[in-house]
């Protein structure tokens, strides 16, 4: 029973690290960081390192809890969450507009009572696990379902991020405005399509000589053996997107030599 909250804590700490690293890696404008969590309490140029250091600390704690029963990690976890509670209270007092940043940019809503209650609940869970007799991986192997689920339920109720995720899924930016998958990913999707297989033999090379994105389409231009342009348009949304193709004569200005085919 004492170890029942270990899996919850470990998963949560790992999620926190992953989300923070994702925010930094997404190359967001620093103003996004300016609204996130304890980072707003430090000067601008230290914000990204502060977020990363916090994520690294979480990862170390998660690893310690998972692999050992050493009390230093357990007390450190208690201290970490207790400190988080204090930081969030301070954040709420000094920067009421800033989000807690606990899970990266998903947590950009201003710190509320729920976020603070969540860190308090986590502190409580961490205190319970101090006296757990087994390391985290044992708790994963033999979970005591009812206590673990109860812990998860409490956290879910106290997480404003879940509301935010639901909102985001309901109101996504249209695909014209979203940053698309990388060119290589789109090329791989093109190559797995039936249209590509039907036209592959005509092309001189498998590498496009030009590629560009317009609205929701990514275009790839190739040359065929007659030196005409073979152009593929791949829709940017979906794993198996619509692919269209046309062959345009090298000296023509407008008309394709045959009508476009839809896949």
């Amino acid at each position, binding site marked *: 029973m004492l170890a029942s909250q270990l899996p919850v804590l470990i998963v949560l700490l790992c999620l926190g690290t992953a989300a923070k690293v994702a925010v930094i890696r997404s190359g967001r404008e620093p103003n996004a960081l300016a609204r996130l969590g304890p980072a707003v309490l430090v000067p601008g140029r230290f914000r990204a390192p502060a977020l990363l250091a916090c994520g690294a600390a979480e990862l170390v704690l998660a690893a310690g809890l998972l692999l050992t029963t050493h009390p230093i990690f357990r007390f450190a976890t208690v201290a970490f969450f207790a400190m988080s509670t204090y930081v969030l209270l301070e954040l709420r007092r000094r920067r009421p507009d800033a989000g807690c940043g606990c899970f990266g940019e998903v947590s950009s809503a201003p710190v509320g009572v729920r976020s603070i209650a969540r860190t308090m609940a986590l502190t409580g869970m961490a205190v319970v696990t101090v006296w757990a007799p087994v390391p985290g991986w044992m708790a994963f192997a033999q979970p005591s379902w009812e206590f673990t689920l109860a812990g998860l339920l409490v956290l879910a109720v106290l997480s404003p991020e879940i509301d935010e995720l639901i909102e985001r899924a309901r109101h996504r930016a249209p695909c014209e405005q979203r940053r698309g998958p990388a060119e290589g990913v789109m090329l791989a999707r093109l190559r797995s399509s039936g249209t590509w297989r039907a036209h592959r033999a005509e092309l001189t090379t498998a590498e496009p000589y030009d590629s560009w994105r317009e609205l929701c*389409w990514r275009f790839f231009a190739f040359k065929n053996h007659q030196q005409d342009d073979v152009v593929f348009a791949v829709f940017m949304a979906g794993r198996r997107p619509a692919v269209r193709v046309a062959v345009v004569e090298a000296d023509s200005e407008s008309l394709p030599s045959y009508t476009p085919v839809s896949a």
Partner: protein
Amino acid sequence: MAYPSVDRRRVLAAAVLGREPGVPGPGPEGEPLRAVTGQIRDVSPHLILVETPEGGSERLVIAPWAKAWHGADVTPADLPVGARVVMRTREGRVVERIWADTIRITGTIMSVEGRKDVTVELDCGPHRGRRTILIPYRATGRLRVRHPQFEPGYLFDAIGIRKDGTALAMLPATSQPAYPARSVPAPPPAYGGMTSRISGTVTWADAFDEDERGAAYPMVERSDAGCPDAGVSCAGLPYLAIGSLLQVHNVCDGRSVNVPIVACGCLAGRFCDRCVECDTSPRGRIAELSPLSYVELGGDLVKGCFNAQIGLG
């Protein structure tokens, strides 16, 4: 970075999606304006002779009501020989507005030096590099009042003249955005898909070739344009490519022109300002035009912007 076949992109995209490839040039409405650029060879109260960038020469009639700008309003006959001019003409040969040696200084402030005459170093984006400009003492008041954050990291936008190889800033082109250049506000959320036309402000830049007609557009994929600062805008713009045709409509005087996108407008996307030329536009610069395209749409280089709508041409 070289774009091997950007002119061809429009034809290829139209062929594959089964749509009409647009044609660059003015729309049907209104009497078309023609912009002429060149270097003054001779000027008199009624005639002006310019050498065009292709090397030809053009002799134009100056209308009696014509106005000229060369750091301040002047009469056309006072323009110095050798000045580079952009002129707006009606019916092809009658000049009604002349802008001489006019430049647009847009960038992020890197350093500010000097007490009376202020020297400012600007970062004009990855394609345009850095430039150093001088603000003469008589212009500092006007510029500083519209640029309250006169320190490194903030944006700067002014109109000025080129004099003896020095860029002099004379007039503010906008009210400086209150945020640092790297903290552009996010666009408003788009519920229920895109609208076909987007409103905002259109400005001009002097970083185009002299006789080029085209636009710089902020929302291009970073990997395609080779521009690490692209893809930022507070106007909710769709992604387009270099080579796409943009239909720009001047809301103030009803003209529209199809212009190709020829560059990435990394810097234009960082300005989340409004144009108050004929009404208050929504926030955000949606395109930056070359001087010729801007003048042919009815814009005034000294005013620096007009309210516009854009659509895909």
